[in-house]
């Protein structure tokens, strides 16, 4: 019933389980061909296994567990082949390469292929933009980061982007901190507006020196090591830092960064920042020495406090419009103190000046970036949810999941109990039997069990290992988990159940077997109908509902079903 419920709604799990099934099927077919290695069908099944592995992986990362399953089994198979002296080293190498290509390279290619499709279908910019780097965004329609003059001069009006977090631009606005110095807020803001503009100016002394020099009107490029001031274009505050703690992060090695000053104010030495260029574009060697928009990644080091402008995705409270906190950190590690100039405006720059533009990332770079972002977001799903459950409750189905409910109907994810429990018994008994057999082996008893042992290992063994690998890794995950994460494991366990039943009953007479099978089928169908009401969301009676509620922890709501009036 759980598989059914999950498949009837538009969710990702149905396709995942479908591809899991396909993979296992082709893998099994591949093994039936193992006596004719390198034949057409052998190759066909192997490649199809690989393709579907890739498909499963592209649906959800749970596909990785499937890859692990197949990988474990391949290693076992290869280890057995290693002991088979009739296979020459050359043949062995061929076996190895064939599997490596089909089971590693092919799935990766498929994964890349689906991403290519994804990117070409979703070529417009959307609300996922903010997660991605500017290079990535540049490949989307509707985003025009365009190009901007390359060289940055004193007096340029620039927009500065935080490099590591993609959280946005160095920003200020006419609101003050409610903590610390109560001066004007400095934040990161994800969208482009005029409040992101900063004018890079000289310090007071060097400005004076410059005015007195012979060429006061000549444009002067900013170099690595220069001390600059950043003037907020709209509000005439200067980027300022001092010995106050930031509003959210309260470490004593971090300073508040504020906007301070007013129009006409000459500024003070706490407005001085040293430009320290750490990375440049390798194709333009000068970008490590002179400040260039887009190409140069630099830190801004506060001269008096010796701290670097820093941000770490921490959100300010409501009074900060929930924008991202910017602070100044002493002895910070490099990555989160890197900034880049994204747009650079200066009226005095000749139109012929060289321009800078974001590079276009290759498909692989894009996929890597998207994967990394997915990983980060996935790990961030740690909020609690009323229907979340931990993996140890899954196999005996302690609790289901409510999907939807209306006045007199509801959809509740609950499996067919007998299948869940028996399949769990099947895989655990496999483990128990293997342990007993192993220990008996070691003590010198070799049980062949009429040849059933190999078959048991090969069929149920594979499925059980798959089940373990689809279940145990969830214990290590910190994110929120739901019952439906168990479904791929369940699918494997149900196959293992049937496989074990087949082997366990093979000594019995045909008739007894048929009776047993029929009984099991009947019980399953009976339960299926019993719980079908909440699977399909069809009408039900309260009595039926309450009778079927075997455990208190199955918390579907019986009271929403009408009471059946029994007339006497």
């Amino acid at each position, binding site marked *: 019933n759980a598989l059914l419920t999950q498949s009837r709604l538009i969710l990702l799990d149905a396709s995942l389980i479908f591809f899991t099934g396909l993979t296992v099927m082709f893998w099994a077919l591949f093994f039936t061909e193992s006596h004719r290695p390198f034949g057409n069908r052998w190759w066909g099944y192997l490649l199809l296994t690989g393709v579907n592995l890739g498909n499963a992986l592209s649906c959800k990362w749970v596909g990785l567990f499937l890859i692990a399953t197949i990988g474990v089994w391949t290693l076992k198979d290869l*280890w057995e082949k*290693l*002991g*088979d*002296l009739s296979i020459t080293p050359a043949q062995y190498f061929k076996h190895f390469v064939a599997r490596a290509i089909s089971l590693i390279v092919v799935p990766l290619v498929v994964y890349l292929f689906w991403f290519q499709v994804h990117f070409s279908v979703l070529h417009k910019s959307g609300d996922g933009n903010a997660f991605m780097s500017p290079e990535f965004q540049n490949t989307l329609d509707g985003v025009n980061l365009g190009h901007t003059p390359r060289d940055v001069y004193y007096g340029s009006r620039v927009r500065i982007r935080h490099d590591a977090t993609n959280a946005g631009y160095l920003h200020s606005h006419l609101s003050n901190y409610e903590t610390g110095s109560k001066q004007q807020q400095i934040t990161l803001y994800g969208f482009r507006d005029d409040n992101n503009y900063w004018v890079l100016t000289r310090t007071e002394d060097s400005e004076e020196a410059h005015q007195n020099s012979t060429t006061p009107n000549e444009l002067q490029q900013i170099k690595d090591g220069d001390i600059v001031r950043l003037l907020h274009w709209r509000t005439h505050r200067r980027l300022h830092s001092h010995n106050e703690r930031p509003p959210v992060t309260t*470490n004593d*090695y971090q300073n508040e960064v504020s906007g301070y000053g007013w129009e006409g104010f000459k500024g003070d030495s706490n407005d001085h920042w040293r430009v320290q260029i750490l990375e440049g574009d390798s194709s333009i060697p000068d970008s490590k020495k002179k400040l260039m928009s887009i190409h140069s990644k630099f830190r801004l*080091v506060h001269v008096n406090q*010796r*701290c*670097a402008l*820093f941000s*770490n995705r921490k959100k300010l409270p409501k009074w900060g419009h929930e924008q991202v906190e910017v602070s100044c*950190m*002493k*002895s*910070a*590690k490099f*990555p*989160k103190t890197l900034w880049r100039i994204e747009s650079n405006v200066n009226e005095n720059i000749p139109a012929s000046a060289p321009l800078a533009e974001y590079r276009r990332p290759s498909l692989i770079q894009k996929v890597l970036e998207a994967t990394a972002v997915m990983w980060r977001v996935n790990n961030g799903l740690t909020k609690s949810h009323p229907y979340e459950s931990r993996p140890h409750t899954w196999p005996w189905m302690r609790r289901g999941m409510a999907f939807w409910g209306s006045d007199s109907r509801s959809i509740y994810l609950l499996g067919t109990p007998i299948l869940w429990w028996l399949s769990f018994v099947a895989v655990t008994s496999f483990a128990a039997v293997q342990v007993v057999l192993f*220990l008996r082996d*070691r*003590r*010198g008893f070799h049980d062949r069990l009429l040849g059933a042992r190999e078959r048991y290992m090969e069929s149920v063994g594979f499925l059980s290992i798959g089940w373990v690998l689809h279940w145990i890794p969830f214990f290590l995950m910190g994110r929120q988990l739901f019952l439906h994460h168990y479904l791929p494991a369940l699918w494997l366990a149900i196959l293992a159940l049937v496989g074990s039943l087949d082997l366990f009953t093979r000594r019995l007479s045909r008739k007894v077997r048929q009776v047993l099978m029929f009984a099991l089928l009947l019980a399953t169908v009976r339960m299926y109908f019993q719980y079908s009401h909440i699977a399909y969301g069809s009408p039900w009676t309260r009595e039926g509902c309450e009778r079927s509620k075997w455990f208190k922890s199955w918390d579907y709501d019986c009271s929403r079903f009408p009471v059946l009036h029994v007339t006497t």
Partner: protein
Amino acid sequence: MESRNLKQRGHHSPVIPETLPFKADDVAGEHSRGAKYTVDTLDADGEGASSKTYGAYPIVSTVQRDDGGTGNNDKSITDFSAVSLAAGIQGIMRSQDLVTVMVLTVLSLMTRLYRIGRSNRILWDESHFSSTYAPKYLNHTFYHDVHPPLAKMLVALAQVVAGFNGSDLKQSNKYPEYVNYTMMRVQIAMYGVALVPLAYLTCLQLRLSRPMAILAASFVLFDNAICVMSRFVLLDAQLLFFTALTLFSAATFQNVNKYAEPFSHRWWAWLSMTGFSLGCVMSSKWVGLFCVILVGIVTAEDLFRKFCDRIPWEDYTMHWLARINGLIVLPLVIYMACFWIHFKLLYRTGPGEHKMSANFQARLLGSKLNSQPYDITYGAFVDMRSMYNGPGLLHSHIHRYPSMSRQQQVTCFPHRDTNNIWQLHKGRGIAANYTLDKIEFINHGDIVQLVHNNTGAVLRSSKEFLAPLTTSHFEVAAENITASSDVDISDWRVEVVQQKHSKRSDKRLHAMTTVFRLRHASMGCLLRVGSRRLPKWGWSQSEVTCLPDSTHKKDVKSKDVLWYIEHNTNKRMLNDDLSKYVKGDFIIDMIQLNIEMGKTNSALSPDRDKYNALESDPWSWPFLIYPMRMVGWSDKTIKYYEIGNPILWWASAIVCIMYPFRLVYWLACQRRQCSGWRSGELLELWDNSKLLWGGWALHYLPFFLMGRVTYIHHYLPALYFALLQLAFDLDLVFKHWRRGRYLRLAAWCIGTLVCLVFLYFAPFTFGWDRPAKELAGRRWLSTWNIYEDIYAM
């Protein structure tokens, strides 16, 4: 012993080639079964049913099996198994070894003690161990630290010997004139000195050739990092010593277990020795647990093999029991004994006491809870604690409930605060002068009012108002009595439930030992606190409610309605020594202290974005990427730099990382039946190297999972294993290369090279008092902050 083994060998070996009950493809990886299969056939033939074969392991390496036709079996038996066998275990040590050990010890003394008292600064973590924690043992004040006590008690012992008076050096950064810090350092360095001969003896047990065993010892001798960490009053030398001792005794026990009669005196002795050193290493630092795991795994493997050997059940059970006793019970006893001594020594109040229970604090001499009047009278000022674990002390403050009565909040607050003090008054309407009237004790059944000392408000509860979160209970609030004194809602009846640690069945209220309930006089509800926390308006403190009168016995006995008086101030009474009345339970104290240690430990979490010159991540350790400055780096100070011997670190890292791959390669070769190993040799190799590599992996890899701050010296125990592994592999290579012709030469060359590198970096180890810039040439990696720091701004 010897003759017995030989006899068995003679008895079994002819049997094996004739009877091979296994298929050719079964052979791979099952070399250990020689003995087993022998037993099978003997049993089947009915001849040797009574023969005991579990002592028969040595035959394995000498048995020639005709398995696979690779042509190896005509080679003669190598000396390395035969010698060890013929000589028995006694023969592992020879008289010449005594000379070697002495020479090594002398060399070790020279490197560890050279100018040890040069710097009178309190260096690196000496500020914790030497000047803060260890003196506490001398003046018996209680403290709290993340590490178990043994290593610190050894430091304290060294201080006693050095004649230190235990004065507090916390504020200074130099040892004062009157402190013989050299003497302390020399004593602690002795643990480091012992490391070198121990390494040699361990290698002999692991069947390294003598030249290579000496080389292994010289690796330990000439590693700058191990040397520099042994020269100061820290915990690392002790930890390393006990780790090495564990390895040595585990290796010896492995040999004894393999070649000698089980349950003999030697066998028991070495088993107990292993257990003893495990206990010590655990009690020095928690890293010692990795040693326990290592020995545990090796033991499990041994027991599993014994299981496969089908030895008699009673013997097998005995093996299990012996190991449980020797390797689990004994170390635990030692661990507990260390804590027992710890508690016995620290009987005075001290800065760490607030981590412990009130019960514990009341037993510390001079603590606030220890010295207070034992009897409670009317007019006493008391702090009341809930028996329910967590919420803490009954508390009130000027903030009000946002709804219901809108009177002053009453909560529970875990920390000491003047807002926790309540004065006990007589029931409503009884006028009394608590400074002049006759002293009146409070007994079971008496009516009291609780007056909040800071605000003068009186604890009350009324039917009209329901509790803010637990709405089935009544709200408990406090209000100044003059405002509405006409209603009878502020009287509480004292119900004494239990007099702890007291034989007398008295009904009087006492500090600390009396457990009681407060029942509302008119409503009959009970003052209660549970696990629920108030929202922001209540400062996330615990909600205090009045539990309506209930007939359930469970409710009346449950901890959430039980209270005791933690502290009692009364000017009219004399202070008592409460340790007379309060009895403690050692096990409970120890468990609580361990839990607190764990909490403190995990609270040491770093900021991943901040660069800290002292911290380093585990991945960087084996390659010695971030050595650590141990002192300030100004030009004049004597500078010590924690840098290892780079070639040793790099070589040992490569060897250890490659080890699993080599193992897989060998196994694959064997499966392919084309390996150059004679049967049993690979197993022998595994037996001898598993302790080394396993030790390295277990002392290193878990650090990747740790959230706490990590330093490069955390790698030193792993390094010790890695250095021995390096020597082990060199031994393996040169033993087989031209049949060991170059072994001695190689040992000398490598030893000399290592020694030269050690001397090259020695200024960092023995102290450098000139500008660090002069040593700039020794900056082999750009990340070494020998004279400049890339993160400096």
